[in-house]
């Protein structure tokens, strides 16, 4: 799938279409991460026909609703279990992210997997996600920011006010080297 921008979280409910034999088949519910509802429904069938004997032509989607983050004002730690295929095989992986929303963490996941492992979104399947307490974190990077009284300086800074101009100077040519120490 094309992942452009932020991912959203959808709850998709579907079932096999009712027949004379089985007028009321069992309904299944999945949580799908997708950029929009169209792709979410498509992903629903992608997973459903892997797990059960049903497909889009023989089934119907009963509901597709976006799940909005309950509290998007605080930073949370997310653990994501995924399965991805690399060039040589398919592997399980567990990654952690700090973000305000679960969908933000999932977006970070897709971008990071693309950057670090060249994995395309089509090769990634999210198995499970969870919001974690700081004490349950396993990866060092998140742990160091989930502590109390975190404090660090910003060494070697490029003044971002000069973003549109030549990176560190107002003019094309200058005789002094720029300063990157801002206390």
């Amino acid at each position, binding site marked *: 799938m094309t992942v452009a921008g932020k991912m959203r979280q959808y709850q998709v409910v579907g079932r096999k279409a009712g027949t004379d034999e089985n007028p009321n088949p069992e309904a299944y519910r999945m949580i799908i991460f997708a950029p929009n509802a169209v792709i979410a429904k498509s992903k629903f069938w992608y997973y459903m026909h892997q797990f059960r004997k049903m497909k889009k032509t023989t089934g119907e989607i009963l509901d597709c609703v976006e799940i909005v983050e309950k509290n998007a*004002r*605080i*930073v949370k730690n997310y653990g994501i279990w995924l399965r991805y295929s690399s060039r040589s095989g398919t592997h399980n992986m567990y990654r952690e992210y*700090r*973000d*305000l929303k679960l969908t933000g963490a999932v977006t970070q996941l897709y971008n990071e997997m693309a950057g670090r492992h060249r994995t395309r979104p089509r090769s990634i399947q999210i198995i499970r996600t969870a919001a974690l307490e700081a004490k349950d974190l396993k990866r060092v*990077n*998140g742990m160091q*920011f989930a502590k*109390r*009284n*975190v*404090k*660090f*300086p*910003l*060494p070697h800074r*490029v*003044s*971002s*006010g000069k*973003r549109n101009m030549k990176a560190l100077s107002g003019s094309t040519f200058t005789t002094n080297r720029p300063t990157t*120490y*801002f*206390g």
Partner: protein
Amino acid sequence: MVFKRYVEVGRVVLVNYGPDAGKLATIIDIVDQNKCLIDGPANLTGVNRQVISYGRIVLTDLTVKVCRNARQKTLSAAWAEADIQAKWESSSWAKKLVAKQKRATLSDFDRFKVMVAKKQRSAIIAKKMKELK
């Protein structure tokens, strides 16, 4: 090279880039090595609670005593107690920003007045220098 300004909960920052450029805000939580959660407080500085990259903010010397994820109410109270607004406006950094902005909005006549004033000033200085020699 000792660092004096830290990214920490309560650090007052100046937003440098984006729709809130030029406004003050406080760091209320740290997301990771690239971004933090800031809040104006919104009623005092106009910056809403949001995640922002460190590249878009500049740390100032001022800090406020707040806990992580402070609500707007507690943050405003802490700002008032520490008198941040007055401390910021009396700093030479803030004054320079105001002067820069004023300079950018000068009309041609204003620039003429500045030139005349500069000439007058340097005439006084030159006269004094001559007397001292």
